[in-house]
C-alpha cells in the first residue's frame, strides 16, 4: 500500500488553486504544493517529483494538454488528473489520448471538492492510482 505524500496543483486561477489546496489539505497526511505558472510548474514537477499532479486544462501561454504531453514526452509517468471548468467531450478525449490518469470537472460546491479530494486520496491508499 502506497501512501499519498505529495500533490502538486497547477492552476492559473488563484481561487481555484485555493479551493483545491483547501480540499486536499483537509485530507491529512498530504503535502500540497500549488503553482500558478505552468512553465514553472513543469520545472517543479521534474525536480520535486510529486506523487500526483492536478492540472488545469485552460491556462494562458501553456495549456494543460501541452504540460501533459511535455511530461509524457520526457517519459515522466507521474499520475496526472486534469481539471477543467467545462468537461467538453473532445477535451476529455484529448486529455486521455495525451496520457492523463483522470479527468474531472471543477466542482461547484465545497462538498464536491471534499468528495473529489477524498476519492483521489482513498484510491491512492488502495493503490489504484499508479505510482512512479
Amino acid at each position, binding site marked *: 500500500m502506497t501512501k499519498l505524500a505529495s500533490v502538486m496543483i497547477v492552476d492559473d486561477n488563484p*481561487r481555484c488553486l485555493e*479551493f483545491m489546496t483547501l480540499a486536499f489539505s483537509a485530507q491529512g497526511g498530504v503535502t500540497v504544493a500549488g503553482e500558478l505558472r505552468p512553465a514553472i510548474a513543469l520545472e517543479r514537477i521534474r525536480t520535486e517529483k510529486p506523487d500526483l499532479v492536478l492540472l488545469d486544462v*485552460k491556462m494562458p501561454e501553456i495549456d494543460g494538454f501541452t504540460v501533459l504531453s511535455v511530461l509524457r514526452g520526457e517519459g515522466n509517468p507521474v499520475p496526472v488528473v486534469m481539471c*477543467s*471548468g467545462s468537461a*467538453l467531450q473532445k477535451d476529455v478525449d484529448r486529455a486521455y489520448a495525451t496520457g492523463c490518469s483522470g479527468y474531472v470537472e*471543477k*466542482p*461547484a*460546491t465545497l462538498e464536491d471538492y471534499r468528495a473529489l479530494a477524498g476519492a483521489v486520496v482513498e484510491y491512492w491508499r488502495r493503490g489504484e492510482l499508479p505510482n512512479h
Partner: protein
Amino acid sequence: MQGSVDTYLQMPRRRYFSALELHAVGVGTVAAIVLLIGYGFAFEPMQTVIPGFPPMRPGTAFAFMLLSLSLLASLRPSRRAKLLSSALAFAAVGWVVNLVISNWGAEEGGDAMGGPIQASLAALMLGGVAILLINHAPRVRLLIAGMALLAATPALYRVLGLLFFWGAPPQKDSLLSSMAIHTAVLIVWFMGVCIILHPALGIGATIQQASLRGRLLRRALPFIVLVPVLAAVSGLVLAMDARSSLDFLFALNATIGAALGAGFVLWLSQLVATWQLEANERSARLSRVNEALEQYASSAAHDLKAPARHVLLYGELLEEAIDRNDLVNAQKYARAIRESAHEMPKIIDGMLEFSTSAYTRIKPADVFLSELVQGAAGQLVAEIEKAEGKIVLLHEIRMRCDAALMTTVLQNLIANSIANRRRDRPLLIRIDGVAEDARWMVSVEDNGAGFDPAFAAVAFNPLARGSKRTGEVKGIGLATCRTIVQAHGGEIRIDIGMTRGARVEFTLPRQDTKGG
C-alpha cells in the same frame, strides 16, 4: 422534397416595372401616331414608314392602343386596375374578332385593304388573351410566354426579311407578305418585352437576379436571340436563290445551331467554374467564422463558469465560518465573493473583444444585396418552407462588404424572424436596401412577435438570451450581427418604434467606393 429558394424569395422589380411601363407607352404611342397622323391627316409616310412597303392598317393601330393601355393597367397593383386591364384586353380581343369577320366580308368583295392581315390579327388576338391570362391566371406563365413567342416569331421573321432584304422576296401566298414593318416591330416589341418580361410571370425577375440562375439566364439570352435570327437570315438568303435545296438550308441551320450551342455550353462551363470558385471561397470563409464562433462559445462557457462557481464556493465557506464564529475568515471569504463577482463583467468584456477579433479580417468586395439575401435564405430553405414564409427584397443596392460575413448577418436576422413568427399569420420578411450619400442602410422587417422593449436594450449582448420574444432564439445571433457590422465600421440597431413585428436595421459606411 425541399423547394428552391426562389419559391420563397421575391426580388425587387420596381425599376424594371417602370421600364416596362415605358415600353407599353412606347408601343401605344407609335400606334396612336400611325392612327392619328397617318390616317387622321392622311400622312402616307406614317402609314408605310418606307415608301413601297405595305401600310399598318388603322384597325391594327387601334388594337395596339387598346393592348398598350390594358398592359399599363395590368402593371398596377390594385384590383380595380386589374379589372380595367382585363376589360381593355377583352375589348381588344373583341375588336380583333370584329376585324376578322369584316375581313371575310372584304375578301368576298375582293378588297382586303381596310383590315389587317391574318398574321397580325392572330398576334393581336394572342396579345389580348395573354394579358387576360396574366391578370387572372399568371400560374400558366409558360403558356403565356409560349403564346408571346408564337406571336413574336413570325413578326421577327418579317422584320428581318424587310430590313435585310428591302421588302423581302415577294411571295404572294405568304401570310406575312402584307404585314407592315412597324406592325411587325410593334408585335415583336409588345410580345418579346411587354408580355414575356411582365412581372406577373416572374421571368424578367429571374433573369435579373444576381444569383447563379440569373447569371446563367442572362448568358443564355444572346444565344436564344441569335439562333432564330441567324436561322431566319440564312433561310431568307437561300430563299432568294431558287437553286438552293431544302437539304442545304437544313444543314446550314443545324450547323449554326450546333456551333452556337457548343459556344454556349463552353461559356456556361466558365460561369459555373467561376461560381464554384466563389462558392468555395465563401464556404471556407464561413467555416473559419464558425470555428471562431465555436471557440468563442466554449471560451464563454468556461470563463463565466469560473467566477460563478467561486461565488458559490466562497458563499459556502462564509456560511461555515459564520457557524464557527470565525469572523476573520468570514471577512476574507466575503471579500473573495465580492472580488469574484467583480471579475464577471471584465470577463464578459474580454469575451466580446475576443469575438470581435474573429471578424476583424474582413474581405471587402462589391456585392449586390440580392446576392446576400439569396445566400442567406438559401441556408434556411427548410425553415422558411416550414414557416410558410416569404422574403421580399424591396430595393436592390450594390454595397461594399465582406460577402460571407454579411450573409451571416442576414442569415441570423432571417433565422430570428422565422423563430419569432406569429402562428396566426404567414411570415413575411421584408428586406430593404437604401444607398445614402455616406452609407448604405439595410433593414430586415418581419410581421412576427416583435421585440420586448426591455430585451431590445440588451439584445446585442452575447449573453442576453432566452428572454427574447418567444424565447426560442439565442442572443448570440444578434451579438454576432453586431460584431460583424461593427467590424465593417457600421452600426446595427433595433427599431423600438416598430409595433407590428420586428425591425432591425444596420448601416455600413461608404468609403471610397462608387457602389449604390
